[in-house]
């Protein structure tokens, strides 16, 4: 047999330090449980992980760079592709950052629509997380149940925006289109059945001794470590720090909604699981409030030269037609300056930092992605654990590689 410790560690230039004469196991980028194309170089002693070195970059898309060659309104379509499990959250964060740069007020109705869709995004993202996490641990049925419900949300997306995944529905100043009639009924229908479905997942997992054995006291991360490594989102709330930007720095209309921030203190895989399950329930509450109290009014701001004019006006007013033509062909200029907007994505703090040099294209767009920060803490969590735990832990931090690499 060939020497098992010889492994092409230098394939992508990742530097691996070994702590002794152990087996190096190359996990990923093609692996069923590294959630995309994460590569982990594991140093294992038997089945015990001595050291783990994550290697990222296999899904580098160059989106941040691409943004610099697009007009401000065109960038929205790129943001979908960063975190493809919650495209609307990315849309929201980007448009909020640009609106902050311009200093634009968005109509209340548009804000409520944004909140509604954003929380549906959170639910659908958590559903993908729960399904794949459970699948990694061997509970296959949960995966299919979760995708069944996610399908309903994707149908709502399609109904509203015309697209199932790459929605690109939010626009600077509001949303792209008046939501179709009956959207709220569809959301209501979803809300009516969904709490029972959560109960169904919980029946299969929450008190299942095998599930508890696989998740409790696994992948522990202390509060200090979380803060030191920039871990945010459910992983941070699972160590007892109730940091949720929807509460602490409300954006859109979140301050008008009544919801709780689920917090656990154990800091293990199970705590993260419970936090996300509870978050889905809270999201249901928020969506319910949004559906019940959806205000009337315009769905986009009226800002000539920035927000596209109504189709009706274009047919009767020459100025509207000119503005439409100008925005589509030349974009709109934004005064030089910079803005940073952070929001609470399903995975944690997502931030868009935009620098304008006074032209119609951003000078620089930088994305602070939650997955990137959370991934940094992975080696700490898996050290000394068994190989099977690595899979459970990767699942529990809920990374999306598109967001890690950008």
């Amino acid at each position: 047999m060939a020497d098992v410790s010889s492994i092409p560690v230098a394939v992508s230039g990742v530097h691996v330090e070994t702590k002794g004469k152990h087996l190096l196991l190359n996990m990923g980028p093609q692996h069923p449980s590294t959630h995309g194309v994460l590569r982990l170089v594991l140093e294992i002693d038997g089945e015990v992980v001595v050291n783990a070195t994550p290697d990222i970059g296999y899904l580098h898309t160059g989106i941040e760079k691409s943004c610099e060659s697009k007009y401000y309104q065109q960038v929205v379509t790129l943001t979908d592709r960063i975190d493809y499990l919650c495209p609307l959250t990315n849309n929201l964060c980007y448009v909020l950052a640009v609106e902050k740069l311009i200093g634009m007020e968005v109509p209340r109705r548009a804000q409520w629509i944004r909140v509604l869709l954003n929380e549906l995004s959170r639910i659908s993202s958590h559903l993908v997380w729960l399904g794949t996490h459970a699948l990694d641990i061997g509970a296959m049925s949960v995966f299919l149940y979760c995708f069944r419900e996610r399908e309903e949300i994707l149908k709502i997306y399609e109904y509203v925006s015309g697209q199932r995944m790459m929605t690109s529905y939010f626009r600077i100043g509001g949303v792209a289109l008046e939501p179709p009639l009956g959207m709220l009924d569809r959301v209501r229908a979803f809300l009516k059945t969904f709490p029972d479905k959560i109960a169904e997942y919980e029946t299969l997992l929450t008190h299942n001794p095998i599930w508890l054995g696989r998740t409790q006291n696994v992948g522990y991360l202390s509060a200090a470590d979380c803060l030191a490594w920039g871990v945010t989102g459910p992983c941070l709330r699972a160590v007892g720090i109730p940091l949720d930007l929807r509460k602490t720095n409300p954006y859109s209309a979140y301050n008008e909604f009544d919801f709780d921030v689920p917090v656990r203190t154990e800091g293990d895989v199970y705590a993260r699981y419970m936090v996300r399950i509870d978050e889905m329930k809270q999201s249901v509450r928020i969506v319910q409030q949004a559906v019940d109290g959806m205000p009337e009014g315009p769905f986009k701001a009226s800002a000539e030269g920035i927000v596209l004019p109504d189709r009706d006006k274009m047919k009767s007013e020459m100025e509207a037609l000119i503005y439409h033509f100008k925005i589509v062909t030349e974009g709109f200029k934004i005064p030089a300056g910079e803005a940073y907007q952070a929001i609470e994505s399903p995975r944690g703090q997502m931030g868009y930092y935009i620098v304008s040099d006074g032209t119609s294209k951003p000078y620089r767009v930088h994305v602070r992605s939650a997955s990137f920060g959370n991934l940094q803490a992975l080696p700490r969590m898996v050290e000394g654990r068994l190989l099977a735990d690595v899979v459970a832990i990767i699942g529990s931090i809920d990374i999306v590689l598109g967001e890690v690499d950008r």
Partner: protein
Amino acid sequence: MPNATFFLISLVKCGVVLFVLLTLVAYIQLAERKIVGRMQSRVGPTRVGPFGLLQPAADAIKFILKEDITPDSAHKFLYLLSPALSATLSMLAITVIPIGGGTVRLFGQNTPMQITDINVGLLFILGVTSLGVYGIVLAGWSSNSKYSLLGSLRGASQMVSYELALGLALIGPIILAGSLSLRHIVEAQQHYWFIVPQFLAFLIYLTAAFAETNRIPFDLPEAEGELGAGYHTEYSAMKFALFFLAEYINMITVSCVATLVFLGGWHGPVFGPALLRAILPLVWFVLKVCFFLFLYIWVRGTLPRFRYDQLMAFGWKVLVPLALGNILVTSLIVGLLA
């Protein structure tokens, strides 16, 4: 019995069993996909033939036509040997399983409804299935892949540990029956099934059997979430199909043993005309085996997977002591009553 007739009879019986076995494996697999599909709000295979009934044939053709890959760095001989070993040993265990109490007339001879009736049938099954671990160990080692190696290491320790609990769980019924012959054990259950006095042993056996056949929640040697496909990661085409076959035949074997030892084998209400009386025991036997096979599928649709250390702890700290305690209590009671 003249030698020629003996060979002829054995050959015919082997042929029949092999045919039934392979068909059964193919359709268990289809049933599994259908049932798990229903449990997961899917429909399962429906496209090949009516209700997807020809799916197993399509799968078989696919396995035959797939490219047969042997990794360059593999140990060629062992790499080839291990799937053959797995499949052969799993089929060998079936030979001593009786499927009915009576005899059938073949070439002018009365012959029992099993390939061969040996008086230590149960021991033979345990021995042969234990050897099955060599297929897994050699497959993992000869593939020269780290994932395969880890899978086979897991497989080896898991099967050795659970073999123990499996064997110990069977001792209770053996004490009650006073025989190692499967036929005698079934006959001893004329009045009551051994599941009643040996309920604990039944549960231990069932759990260990799941581990023995590498099924969820004990499918660690092939845990796809962690190890790709475990010990058969590097196998393709018919070589992979043989491992697959071995796993399903093992499932049938342990289900048959559970039926024979705990559920009274072919015993069940027998009534009606002569023909029905002749067939009913076979029907009961098949139904009981199917119940266990359904249990396997049901569990797969429900439970997550154990972790390696939890599996070992459960085997050695829970199942083995319980099985030993069961033997002690059983022998004490049998001794006192005698």
